[in-house]
């Protein structure tokens, strides 16, 4: 009951924010509000896709510029949160493709393992257990990785993940619980 009230409140807040964003007179102030609410969440979503802080910073800026330019086209078919996640996801994929075209050396590193890029990042200082978790996640398929990260670290609901990745909720649930089981089995081995 309490959760439903919380969800309703959050949706009505989101609807009010969208209205302000789509009003040219209030757009700029509303956008600052939008950044306060979603900047950190989107950053971490992007960071897990593009690995390094520097890349995540670039993609985050591009994501918000795209959101700003396209907010008038937002029709409310999904939540604003999911819509922005999808933009961030697409921007990250576009960024990775661009990098792959530009530098073959970088592709090789990515192809070998995301871990090498991550360990070279100045803003990574993981300990043994964290490195182990990264290694386990790195062994997952791309789909398993995305589902686990979105569910566990970004705290998205299965419905939201389903809207972002365009995969059925039942498949996502099965994928997620499989990944959690694998992590639990391997983490303290």
């Amino acid at each position, binding site marked *: 009951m309490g959760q439903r009230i919380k969800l309703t409140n959050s949706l009505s807040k989101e609807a009010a924010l969208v209205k302000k964003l789509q009003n040219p007179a209030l757009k700029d102030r509303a956008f600052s509000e939008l950044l306060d609410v979603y900047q950190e969440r989107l950053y971490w979503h992007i960071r897990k896709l593009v690995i390094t802080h520097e890349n995540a910073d670039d993609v985050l800026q591009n994501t918000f510029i795209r959101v700003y330019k396209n907010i008038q086209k937002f029709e409310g078919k999904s939540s604003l949160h999911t819509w922005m996640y999808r933009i961030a996801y697409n921007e990250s994929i576009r960024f990775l493709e661009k990098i792959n075209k530009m530098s073959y050396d970088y592709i090789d590193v990515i192809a070998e393992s995301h871990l090498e890029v991550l360990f070279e990042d100045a803003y*990574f200082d993981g300990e043994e257990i964290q490195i182990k978790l990264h290694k386990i996640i790195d062994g997952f398929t791309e789909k398993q990785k995305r589902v686990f990260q979105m569910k566990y670290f970004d705290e998205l609901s299965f419905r939201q993940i389903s809207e972002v990745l365009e995969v059925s909720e039942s498949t996502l649930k099965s994928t997620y619980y499989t990944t959690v089981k694998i992590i639990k089995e391997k983490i303290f081995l």
Partner: protein
Amino acid sequence: MKNTSENNNKENFLKEGFEGSISKHHKKYLGTGIPEGYFAESKISILAKIKEVSLLNEQPKRQLVFWMQPQFKYMVAASLVFVLGITIWMQNLDISNATNEITFDQVAFTNDILLESLLVEESEIEAFTNATLFNEVVVKAELSEQKLDNLILNSLIIEDSLFDDYIDDKFIETIIL
């Protein structure tokens, strides 16, 4: 004792929710960090970029010179189409006139020939007729007669040879039998 604590760790791992902020959660589980005060700086930088974008969008569109404005563009386009249409029509008109002229010339030429033929001497016409008759009738008749003779001769020769072969074969068979 150690096993019990490990089991507890296993039980608790991936069960905790966000501790304060999503960034701390990532730091704790993934070891990934961010520069201090990053989000505040990033917000300022994003808002500055967005201001640039909105300024670009707000900039009044350049006033076009009067003849490049849309209403004039349409008029110019319509005039061009009209002129092109007229040109094509005129060209077609010229072609039909030319055709008429050719027909007239042909008729005049035919009439000239008819008139000239009236003025030709009868002896010339007779000589022409004889020559034509000789070429068309006599020579062709002679040639066709020659062809017929050749045909008959060929058929006779071939038939005779066949007949001879037949007789020879029969003769040999009779002797053998």
